C-alpha cells in the first residue's frame, strides 16, 4: 500500500476548511501550519482571477527530509506515509532545509520539527485525514496509489494529461498530486511575493521555532 493525495484545483474554492480541520485535529500551534491554502491573484485589473492551492507535505517516495534526518525521527510507515517521531527529533532543522516544498516547520511549543502526516493516527483507525473529511467540494482525494480500483488511482487515470506534482525536477517522487494546477499554483518562482502584500495581515516573515 502506498497512500497518496490528489487535490483537484478546479474544485477548490479556497474556503480554508481543510486548513482549520488540520489545525484542530493535530493541535497545530499558532503561526505554524501543516496544511495551508495559498491565494495567488493572476492578471491585471479588471481581468483578474484568484487561484487557490492547498499546500502540505508531499510524502515523497524519495524524501530528502527522511534522508537527512540524523536520528530517523522522520521515517517511512509501511503505507508510504513520511511520519515524524517528535520525541526523537533533536531540532537540527536539517529536514526544514532539505524539503523543497517548505512543508516542515519547527514547532514553537515542542521545539521539534513537525509536518503533515496525512493524519497517520486517523489512518491507523481506518479514518480519512481530517482535511479530506472537511472539504465541502471533495477536492481532496486520498487513497492507495497501488490499488488501481482506489478513488485516487481512478482519478489519476481519468485526468492523465492534467496531473502534476510540485517541482518534479527535484527527483523526490511526491505522493501528492494536483489536477488543474499551473505554474502559478505550483512554482513559487512564478509569482511575486511582495512584502506586506497580504489580504488579512502584514506578517511576511515567521520566526523559526517561535524565537523573536
Amino acid at each position, binding site marked *: 500500500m502506498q497512500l497518496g493525495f490528489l487535490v483537484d484545483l478546479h474544485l477548490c474554492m479556497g474556503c480554508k476548511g481543510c486548513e482549520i480541520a488540520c489545525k484542530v485535529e493535530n493541535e497545530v500551534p499558532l503561526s505554524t501550519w501543516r496544511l495551508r491554502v495559498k491565494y495567488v491573484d493572476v492578471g491585471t485589473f479588471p481581468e483578474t482571477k484568484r487561484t487557490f492551492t492547498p499546500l502540505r507535505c508531499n510524502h515523497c517516495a524519495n524524501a530528502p527530509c527522511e534522508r537527512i534526518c540524523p536520528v*530517523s525521527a522522520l521515517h517511512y510507515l509501511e503505507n508510504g506515509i513520511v511520519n515524524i517521531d517528535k520525541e526523537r527529533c*533533536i*531540532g537540527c532543522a536539517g529536514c526544514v532545509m532539505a524539503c523543497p516544498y517548505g512543508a516542515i516547520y519547527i514547532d514553537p511549543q515542542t*521545539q521539534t520539527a513537525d509536518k503533515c502526516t496525512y493524519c497517520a493516527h486517523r489512518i491507523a483507525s481506518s479514518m480519512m485525514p481530517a482535511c479530506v473529511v472537511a472539504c465541502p467540494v471533495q477536492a481532496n482525494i486520498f487513497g492507495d496509489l497501488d490499488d488501481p480500483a482506489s478513488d485516487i488511482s481512478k482519478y489519476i487515470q481519468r485526468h492523465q494529461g492534467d496531473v502534476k506534482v510540485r517541482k518534479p525536477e527535484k527527483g523526490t517522487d511526491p505522493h501528492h498530486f494536483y489536477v488543474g494546477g499551473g505554474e502559478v499554483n505550483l*512554482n513559487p518562482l512564478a509569482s*511575486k511575493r511582495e512584502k506586506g502584500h497580504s489580504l488579512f495581515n502584514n506578517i*511576511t516573515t515567521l520566526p523559526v521555532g517561535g524565537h523573536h
Partner: protein
Amino acid sequence: MAAHEILAATNAVVTLDVGIPDIVWPWLVTVNMWAKSIGTGVIFMIFFLLRMYPDSSQKLRLPVAIISFIFLNIFLLFTLADLHQPLRMWHIFVYSHWTSAIAVGAMMATVFVGLVSLLVLLAWQKKNEAFDKLLLWTTILAIPVTLYTASLMAQCTARELWQMPTEAAQMMLAALIAGSATLILVGNSLSDEAKRFLGVVLGLSALMAFIIFMSEYIFGPMKAEEVTAVLAFIKGNGEWTTAFWLGQWLTYLLPMLLVVLSRVSGSTAILKLAAILSLIGLAIVKHVWLIIPQLLPMS
C-alpha cells in the same frame, strides 16, 4: 515557459499565504563552519610543515594541537547551540541514521576531536615520534571531517545553490586558507622558506576559491531558475551584494595581492595582514553563502 516569463505574462501575486520562514540555519552555523575550517586546516598545515620544514616547525606541535582543539570545540559548541533540542544531542549516537551527513559527520567529528586531544597530550609530553605517527591518521581523518559539511549542504535538496562538487572544493580550500593563515599568525619561529610556503598555500587557495565563486556567480544562472533567483540577492541592488563582495575582497582578492607583495618585499607583516583579512573575510563569505538560499520562498 520559464518562471520569469510566466510571471511577466500573468502578473501573478501571492495575496494570501503564511509568512515565509525566517532564516533556519543562522549565524551559529556560520561560526560552526568557520571554526571547523581552522580546526582541521591547522592540522593539514602542521602535517606538511613537519615534513617539509622539520627544523623550524618542531616547536609548533603543541600550539597547533591546542589551536585545533579549541576551534574544534567552538565548532561543536555552536553545532549544539544551533539545535532546538540540544539536550537530545545524544540521540545522534544512539539512533544514528547513516544516510544522514549530520549523523556521519557527528561521529567523525567526535573521533577527530578525540585524536586531536591525544595530539595535545603527546605534544605536552614531548613524545614527538608518537605525535607524528598519530598526526598522519588525524590528517587523513581531517579530510572527511572537512568535507562532511559540504555533503550536508548537498543533501539540502531545497537549496539548489549548494552543489556537492563545488561545496566540497570550497570546504577544502577554506580549510587550507584558514590553516595557512592561522599558522602565518602563530608561526613566528618558522623559517622564511616555511612562511613563504604558507603564503603560497594561502594565495593559491584564495585564487582557486575565488575562481569557483565567480564561476558559480556567472554560470550558475545558466543552469537553474532557482540559482538565478538566489544569486539575485548578491547581484545589482541585492540585499546581500555588499556583504558578498566585502567577503570576496577580504578573503581572496586582497590576500592574493598581499601575498604577492610580501614575496616581493620579504615582509612578514604584510603576510600577517593577508592572514588576518582572510580569516575575517572567510566568516563573511561563509555567512553570505549560507543565508542567500534561505531567502527564497519554497512554496
